[in-house]
């Protein structure tokens, strides 16, 4: 209970104080709290966007109540700390589904809005923020504002993908999606080259509501970009519950780093590819095993050992061809640090979010053990490729991008900064705005507290068997 850590467990941060917010009608007075302030929900962000070293953490997990559910129109209003797990339990039996879901159901509505999360249906549905009809925001001066596409519209746009910096979301209303049943009909097909991944994605965009690819992270040369493509649709169900039941299994402690080395991963990778990828296969799966394969093991992130791990997720447009994507995959493979990369082609639906990450192009997401400077250099080099391709890196997964990179990925950041609550900041925000022109409208607070240097970047780690097993279904993106 002590830990307000992020999912990658890097960097570590220690808040000066923790203040719970439990009641939407009687929130504590934020003006009296030692700043800077930052909401914290389930901590499923990987890097430091949910951390507030030296500041006050506003724990919103007590805001976990439903407010209203219109089961005819599929409108759900709930407090911001309500988890996707609780929502699914409520709505799936009544024929509704989340309009957009990330690769874990252990996220809150507030967190999903603040990172404007995306899922395997980005090409059809856009981001989560596209389905938020209204929300209530608590600012540090005590004002409470209902924001929607029509009321307080700019603040609404800043709050979607606003990284928790515009105030505390007390509740939100979202538009759900009707489904015929709890099952997913999925198709898995093997591809041998990157070109085929794109061809499959393009073909599937018309047929499949959900698409993602699992790309071998170790193979180079002729085999570079091989993998398994997944397409899925909600199946007409018989209403019976065949989904995997939530596991209570927890990893009791940090697994020693030598348990999984690149060799064992490589062997695993081969087997995985041979078994799953032999030919195209169709199957039914419970929605949980399709969307949330990693959730079966609680705390799988601990398998990366004490030093934690990094997730890197970028998006690059591919109008100019696949050269950049291939280059990025090759660098990852050359580093022998990740055994698989999740890939997904984003569509062109625009989010209302001002600072949102998703944009048309291909996104790649990869878990990398924190092996120290070597990894940081690798990711800096990939950043440069992404900048050149006019792409972006996802703040929800980031622990290391430089202010220069941030500025290049999000040139609109200064306009966004005008909506940041003057009492709010995060470890991420201080890090990526350090040294960027304060004249551009960055609140003084954002720079007031010195960014805490990453505690340690040295050491070795290894991906977990848990992620490996789940990788077959493509956990993230």
């Amino acid at each position, binding site marked *: 209970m*002590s830990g307000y850590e992020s999912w990658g467990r890097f960097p570590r941060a220690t808040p000066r104080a923790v203040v719970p917010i439990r009641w939407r009608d009687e929130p504590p007075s934020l003006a009296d709290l030692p700043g800077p302030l930052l909401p914290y929900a389930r901590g499923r962000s990987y890097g430091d966007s949910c951390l507030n070293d030296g500041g006050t953490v506003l724990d919103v997990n007590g805001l976990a109540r439903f407010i209203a559910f219109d089961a005819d129109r599929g409108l759900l209003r*709930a407090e911001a700390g309500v988890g996707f797990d609780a929502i699914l339990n409520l709505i799936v039996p009544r024929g509704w589904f989340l309009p957009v879901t990330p690769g874990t159901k252990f996220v809150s509505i507030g967190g999903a809005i603040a990172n404007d999360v995306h899922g395997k249906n980005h090409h059809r549905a856009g981001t989560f923020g596209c389905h938020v009809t209204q929300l209530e925001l608590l600012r540090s001066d005590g004002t409470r504002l209902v924001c929607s596409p029509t009321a307080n519209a700019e603040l609404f746009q800043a709050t979607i993908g606003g990284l928790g910096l515009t105030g505390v979301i007390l509740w939100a209303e979202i538009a759900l999606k009707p489904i015929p049943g709890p099952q997913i009909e999925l198709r898995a097909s093997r591809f041998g080259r990157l070109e085929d991944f794109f061809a499959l994605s393009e073909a599937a965009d018309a047929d499949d509501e959900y698409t993602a690819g699992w790309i071998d992270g170790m193979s180079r040369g002729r085999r570079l970009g091989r993998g398994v493509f997944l397409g899925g649709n909600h199946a007409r169900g018989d209403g019976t519950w065949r989904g995997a039941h939530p596991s209570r299994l927890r990893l009791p402690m940090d697994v020693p780093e030598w348990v999984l080395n690149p060799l064992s991963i490589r062997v695993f990778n081969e087997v995985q590819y041979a078994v799953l990828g032999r030919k195209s296969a169709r199957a039914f799966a419970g929605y949980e095993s399709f969307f949330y394969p990693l959730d079966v093991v609680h705390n799988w992130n601990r398998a990366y050992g004490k030093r934690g791990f990094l997730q890197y997720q970028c998006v690059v447009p591919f109008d100019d061809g696949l050269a950049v994507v291939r280059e990025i995959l090759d660098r990852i493979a050359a580093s022998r640090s990740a055994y698989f990369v999740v890939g997904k082609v984003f569509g062109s639906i625009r989010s209302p979010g001002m600072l949102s990450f998703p944009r048309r192009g291909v996104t790649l997401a990869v878990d990398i053990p924190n092996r120290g400077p070597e990894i940081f250099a690798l990711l800096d080099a990939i950043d440069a490729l992404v900048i050149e391709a006019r792409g972006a890196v996802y703040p929800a997964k980031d622990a290391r991008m430089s202010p220069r990179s941030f500025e290049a990925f999000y040139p609109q950041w200064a306009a966004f900064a005008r909506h940041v609550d003057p009492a709010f900041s995060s470890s991420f925000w201080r890090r990526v705005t350090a040294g960027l022109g304060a004249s551009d409208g960055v609140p003084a607070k954002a720079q007031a507290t010195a960014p805490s240097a990453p505690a340690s970047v040295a050491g070795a780690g290894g991906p977990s068997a848990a992620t490996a097993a789940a990788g077959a279904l493509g956990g993230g993106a």
Partner: protein
Amino acid sequence: MTAERVLVAGATSAIAAAVARRYAEAGADLVLAARDAGKLSAVADDLRVRGTGRVETFVIDMVDTARQAELLAAAQAALGRIDVVLVAWGTLPDQAAIEHDVAATLACWEANATSVVAFLAQAADVLEAQRGGCLAVITSVAGVRGRRANYTYGAAKAGVIAFAQGLRARLFAAGVAVVELRPGPVDTPMTARLRKGPLFIGPERAGALIVGAIRRRRDIAYIPGYWRWIMLAVALVPEGVMKRLNLSAG
């Protein structure tokens, strides 16, 4: 669990809300009573969304014992028969802060003992007249032995424990169960200021265990059950040793 008719007094408590949630999800009809109207309606909204039964609210400061009969009448009117009454309100003052403050000491007594005993007595009459139902009351492991860290609170809970024992024997003949629930430390607003040790459990877990104990009509249930053994061991510590110890926790 078949759909039941449940009255929860102190429904904005984190533990009670977790209990109510389970009943709501099983289709129960609920009457919720609490002193803060805003919090109460937030809890009620949540239960209406989760459940299928009806959810009524009643705003009352439970220390206002003169109004308790009104609550019971309203619950009877709303539910018809009452299957379960859960008594959950309480306050845990900082012992050190009230030690030399008689008014605060008595206020703690009122919130955790006098008001509870008054309500139990009246609810007992209702259930006895129904010839059935379950009267469940949350006490605490703190009521099992007086300790330096929380003896005012503990003594008030101890009073309720003895009262419930006698009541149980009286109501037995009418087919009414008295279920007395003794949680160990639970991570709720009540314990927000305490350091969280490994024995703390979450309110959801406490709620699930309480629903189970009520369903099985347990006379006395430690929440979780292992507290029975811990308190047995604590009971064996000679007073001469106890007075030199400084055992903490709710």
